[in-house]
C-alpha cells in the first residue's frame, strides 16, 4: 500500500505559553489519536519534535558546512512532528489527516524506491 507522510504543523508560541497542567489536557486527545492509529496499523512510525528554539541548521556555504543556530526557515509555524501512514490512496490519507485533533497537517506521498 502507498505510504504518506503527515507533517503536523505547530505554533511554537502557543506551546511555550502552556502550563504543565494545560499541556497535559491539550496533549491527551493527540496521544489517544496516536495510540489508536498505531494499534490499527495505519501509523507505521512517527515522532514528535522538540520546539524550533532547539533547532540547529547546518548549511553548505561555499562548499563547506557551517553550523548556525536556529531553524532552516524562521517562522511562527514549524514542523512539530510527523507520522508515516499506510493507506490505499490520497482520499484515505486526507481522511486520516482530518481526524487529527491538533492543527494543520501537510499530506505528502512517500516515494517508494
Amino acid at each position, binding site marked *: 500500500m*502507498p505510504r504518506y507522510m503527515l507533517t503536523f504543523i505547530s505554533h511554537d508560541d502557543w506551546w511555550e505559553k502552556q502550563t504543565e497542567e494545560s499541556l497535559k489536557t491539550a496533549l491527551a486527545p493527540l496521544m489517544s489519536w496516536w495510540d489508536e492509529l498505531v494499534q490499527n496499523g495505519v501509523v507505521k512510525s512517527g515522532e514528535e519534535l522538540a520546539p524550533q528554539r532547539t533547532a540547529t541548521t547546518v548549511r553548505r556555504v561555499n562548499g563547506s558546512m557551517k553550523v548556525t543556530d536556529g531553524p532552516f526557515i524562521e517562522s511562527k509555524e514549524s514542523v512539530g512532528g510527523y507520522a508515516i501512514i499506510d493507506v*490505499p*490512496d*490520497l*482520499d484515505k490519507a*486526507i*481522511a486520516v489527516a482530518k481526524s487529527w485533533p491538533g492543527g494543520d497537517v501537510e*499530506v*505528502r*506521498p512517500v516515494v517508494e524506491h
Partner: protein
Amino acid sequence: MRSLGDFDVAEEAVQDSLVAALEHWPRDGIPANPGAWLMTTARRKGIDRLRRETRYREKVAQLEETPMATSSMPDERLELIFTCCHPALAREAQLALTLRSVAGLTTAEIARAFLQSEATIAQRLVRAKRKIVDAKIPFRVPEGHELPDRVSEVLAVLYLMFNEGYLATGARGAMDRDLASEAEWLTSLLARLMPDEPEVLGLLALMRFNLARADARFDADGELVLLRDQDRAKWDRPKIDETFLLVGRFVRMRSPGVYQLQALIAGAHADAKSWETTRWPEILRSYDSLLMYGDTPVVRLNRAIALWHVYGPTAALADVDALAAELSGYHLFHATRAELLRALGRAADARAADERALELTENPAERALLARRLARRSR
C-alpha cells in the same frame, strides 16, 4: 479499488467512444443500451476534429434523454468528474482538467476561454495529471459521509466555470457564452448521473434560468442591460418553463441548499412579467434562507434590493450602509447605494456613489453602463 494510473485511460476511453458513437448512431440508430455501448466501444479516431461538431452535442443530448439500461459496464464519466474536481487539486487545475477531460475541449480552446497561453494551460494540465498519479488521487466516486463535501466541490467548479463565462464581458466576447454553456452541459451530465442530488438540480436550474435571459443582457450596441431594463420578450420562454420542471423536482426532495435557493431567486425573476410585478417577498425569503447558509456581505447586498421592494428604500439603505466597512472597495456596493439614494430623492449623494462605483469598476461593459447612467443624470 481500481488501479491508480486509470485516469488517462478512462479519459481517453470516454472520449473515444463518444466519437465512435457519432459515427455509428446516425447510421445504425441509438443502441438499446447506449451507456454500456459507449463504455465498451473505444476507438481512436480524429477526436479533436469530431468532438466539437454540433452533431456530437446532439447525439450526447439524445443519449442523456435515453434511459440507461442497467449494465455491468460502469459509466466512468462520474468517476472522471470527481477526480478532475478533487479538492487536492487547485481550483484553476480543476477547471482546466474538467474542461479538457470531461467536456473534451482542446488545450487551445481552454487557453482562449481563460485568456491564457496554450503553454500555460498545457503545463497546468500536465501538473494536475502528475499529481493525480503521484499522490494517488483515487479514480472513484466518493462514498458515504465524504460525498456531500465532494459534490459541493464539483458544483463549485461548475459554478465558477459558468460565472467565468456568463459574467465576464468585453475582451472575450462570444467565447464567454461558450464557457457558460460548457458548464451547463457538464452540470446536466452530472444531473443525469446523480439524479437524486437536489443541489445538482439546483445549480442546473440556476444556470438555465440565467442562460434563458442571455439574449436580453446586451443591447444592439453590445451594451450591458440590467435585469430591470431587459426586454422580457427576448427571454427564452420555453427554456424557462422547462427549467421550472427541474425546480419542481428539487423542491419535492425537501433538502434545500445554496444553489437551489439561488435558482428559486432566478426563477422568480424569470417568471415575472416586469420588474415591478416581481414576487419580491418570495425573493426576500429566499435571501433570508441563503443567509442561514452563509451570512456574507455580498448576499446581504443582493438581499437589499429585495428588501427595497418589500419594505422601501430607507430600510434597504440602512442595511447597505451597514456593509460599508466590508464592501467599500466593491463597485456594486456603491452602485446599489446610488440606486437607493436616487429612490430617496438624494440626487447629489446618488451621483457621488455612482462616480465612486465607476472608479472601482474594471469590467468594460459595467463601466459603460455606469458612465451612461452618470451622463443621463447630469443632463
